[in-house]
């Protein structure tokens, strides 16, 4: 129990430090994207180590949730999106960003999505929905490579990838 209390305190401090550095732009955007941040905490007295990894996508996710109210809901649901009813609202939101040529945010969204956690429909659907803008989305190609890998692992019908690769 004591560990938990101490650990939380460290996390709070670390989170505040990360936030401060992020807010003051002491990271270059590129380093944020490419490396992220890894924080290691040692508790020698208790022979306990803790590592917090703030992935590059964490910054994107934070930015997206601050800008768009629907992003948090999308990420909580994209593993179960399997119908027109559940998926259409999110397609519309992503569509609005594309129509507004807000490609950097769509690209950030693609970076944040974990293909292995997506439903079959959203896994393929996100790639198709953004296909026409792939030249404006630097992360699209990598995402589709992940999609192909994931679709193969899941033994998804290869016709679902038609036109994407």
């Amino acid at each position, binding site marked *: 129990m004591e560990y938990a209390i101490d650990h939380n305190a460290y996390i709070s401090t670390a989170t505040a430090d990360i936030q401060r550095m992020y807010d003051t732009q002491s990271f270059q955007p590129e380093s944020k994207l490419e490396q992220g941040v890894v924080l290691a905490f040692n508790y020698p007295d208790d022979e306990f180590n803790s590592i917090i990894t703030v992935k590059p996508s964490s910054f994107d996710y934070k930015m997206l949730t601050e800008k768009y109210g629907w992003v948090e809901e999308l990420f909580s649901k994209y593993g179960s999106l*399997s*119908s*027109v*009813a559940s*998926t*259409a609202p999110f*397609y*519309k939101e992503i*569509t609005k960003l*594309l*129509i507004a040529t807000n490609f950097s945010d769509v690209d950030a969204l693609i970076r944040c999505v974990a293909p292995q956690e997506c439903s*079959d*429909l959203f896994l*393929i*659907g996100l790639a*198709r*929905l*953004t*296909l*026409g*803008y792939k030249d404006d989305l630097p992360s699209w190609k990598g995402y589709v490579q992940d999609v192909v890998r994931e679709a193969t692992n899941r033994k*998804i*019908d290869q*016709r*679902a990838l*038609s*036109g*994407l690769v």
Partner: protein
Amino acid sequence: MHLDCTHYSQFEDIEILAVAISRPRPSRKQQHAGIIFRDATGELKLLDLQWHYSLSLAPPSDSFIWVDVPLDDISKTHLATVCQVIADLNQEEGIPYSISTEGASILHTGEFFGEHLHSGFTCATFVLAIFESQGFKVVDYRNWISRPSDKKWQFQIIQNLQRSGATPEYIAGQVKQLSAGADRFRPEEVCAAISVGSWPAGYEETKEPAAKVLEYTIQHATNTHA
């Protein structure tokens, strides 16, 4: 190719999405195409470009037959979702009806985009555009042919557009396209091209299945109106 109609089946058998075709008036040699899909409420809806700036999303009538789309369920559900988005984005403003698809596209986002004043779709090319917007290249445009009867039909369409109040500029653009030559993709050809599955399908590959689709459509129209 799997064809069906309400004489032998029921619309409820369409689980996700199918392409649909009808001959609205048995006395007229004119077919009409659209896409039937289950919308966000789970109801079956027909999305079709009925006429100039008249995009409709409504329950399909018995006059339609439907053709199975040889895709997996994920792709069908994705297309159905896109149909819903297209309807939501374009129904109010509509989409222009045009003999020429030059410069016309349904963006991947579901919005209509017309590069030129004359850009638009027929009911059939609208269906094609929906598939193409999501990366499914159904028709091989390089291997399509123009037939003399196409020009006659296109001329009639321009006359009808004029009668229904299209702007003089729009009509002028259509006439220019007619003179330059615009390929026509008939509703039965689009349905057949989608049904064969070996995309992109050229004119020759589509010819025979299109004749079957047309025959079935006429038979259904005759039976329905008997």
